C-alpha cells in the first residue's frame, strides 16, 4: 500500500479517537448544563395503575423506577419488595413505570408489598427530573421531598 495512504489511515484512526472523545465530552457538557427539576413525589403527577393502599404512616416513600421490558430491574424491584419489611415505620413502596407508551397491565406489576403502582405517562422521570437508570430507588420524605442521600451511600 502506498506509504502516504497508510499514513492517512493512521491519522484517521487517531482523529477518530480524538473526535469520539471530543464529541462525547461536548455531549456530556451540554447535558450537564441542562437544569432539571428536583424530584418531588406527588401522586397527582402520575397515573395510578393499582389503587394506592390506605395511607400508612411512614417516614419515607420509596419509589422504584421500572420498565416492564427490563427483566433485571423488575426482578430487582420484586427482590426489594420481598425483603422490605412492612412493620409500622417501614417506608411506603411504590413502583413507577417509566418510558412506556402504552398503559402497563396491572397484573405484570402486582406484588403484595407494593403500596401502589403508577405510570409516568408524561415522562416526568426522564424529561423533567433527568433520571435515566431503570431500577433506581428514589427516596422521598413524608412531605414528598426527595432525599438525595441514598441509604448506605
Amino acid at each position, binding site marked *: 500500500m502506498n506509504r502516504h495512504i497508510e499514513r492517512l489511515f493512521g491519522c484517521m484512526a487517531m482523529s477518530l479517537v*480524538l473526535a469520539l472523545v471530543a464529541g462525547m*465530552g461536548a455531549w456530556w457538557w451540554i447535558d450537564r448544563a441542562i437544569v432539571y427539576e428536583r424530584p418531588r413525589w406527588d401522586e397527582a403527577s402520575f397515573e395510578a395503575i393499582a389503587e394506592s393502599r390506605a395511607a400508612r404512616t411512614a417516614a419515607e416513600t420509596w419509589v422504584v423506577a421500572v420498565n416492564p421490558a427490563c427483566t433485571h430491574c423488575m426482578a430487582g424491584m420484586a427482590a426489594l419488595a420481598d425483603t422490605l419489611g412492612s412493620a409500622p415505620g417501614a417506608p411506603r413502596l411504590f413502583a413507577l413505570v417509566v418510558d412506556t407508551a402504552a398503559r402497563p397491565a396491572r397484573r405484570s406489576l402486582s406484588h403484595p408489598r407494593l403500596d401502589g403502582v403508577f405510570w409516568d405517562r408524561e415522562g416526568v422521570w426522564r424529561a423533567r427530573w433527568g433520571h435515566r437508570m431503570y431500577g433506581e430507588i428514589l427516596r422521598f420524605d413524608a412531605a414528598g421531598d426527595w432525599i438525595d442521600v441514598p441509604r448506605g451511600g
Partner: protein
Amino acid sequence: MVSLTSRFAALGRAPRAHAGPGESSSPRLPWPLPIAPTLLIAGVITYGWWRAVHQQLVPMPGVPNDPRIAATLATLARLAGNGLEAAFYVLSWRAFGHRIPFVRLYAWITLLSGADLFAFEMRQHFLDTRGAVPVAAAIVSGIGGLPGSWLPRAFHVAFASTGLLTLARIAFTARAQTLATGVALGRTLAFTGATWLLTHLALGFGYALLQGRSVPGLP
C-alpha cells in the same frame, strides 16, 4: 496532507540515526512467548474473563437468557476490544512511518490483559471476603474497589482499573511498541498513556450520559 503526515512521522522518529521520516521500520516485535505457551496462556486468560463475568451475572436476578451466553458475548467483546486496541496502535504508528505486525501486538495485548484480570479478581476477592477493598490493595488493583473517590461516580467507574497493575500493563504495551518501532520508550509510553486516558475519559462521559441525574449506588 503529505507534509502533515511527514510531520507526524518526525514525531515518532526512532532514535537511530538511519531511521528518518518516511522510513518504515522492519517488524522486530517478537512474540511475547513462544507460540504454544502464548496460545495456552491466552486461553487461560480468556477463560478467566468468561468465568469472572459469569460469576458476576449469576447472582443478578432477572438477567435475560442464560448467563453463560451473556458471559460468552462479553468475553468475545473483550477479545474484539483487544483487537481494536492493537489495530489502533498499528494504524497510528503507520502515520509515523512504522510498521507493527498486528497479530503479534494482539498477542501482547491479550496476554497483558491478564494484569487487568488479576486486578479484577483481586478486587472481587476482597469484596467477597471482607466486604471492602483495603486502600493498599486498591492502589495495586484499581480504585474501583473503593466505595468512591473525588471523581464523579461515572468517572470513578470508568477509571475503576486505575492502579499499579494497569500502569504496568500500559508500560508493557508501550514497551512492545518500542520493540516494534525503535521509538524511545518515553514516547511510546506517552502515546499509550494518552490513548488509555482518552478512551477511559470517553467511557466516563458515556456512563455519565447513561446515568443522567439518577442516584448511583442503589440496588
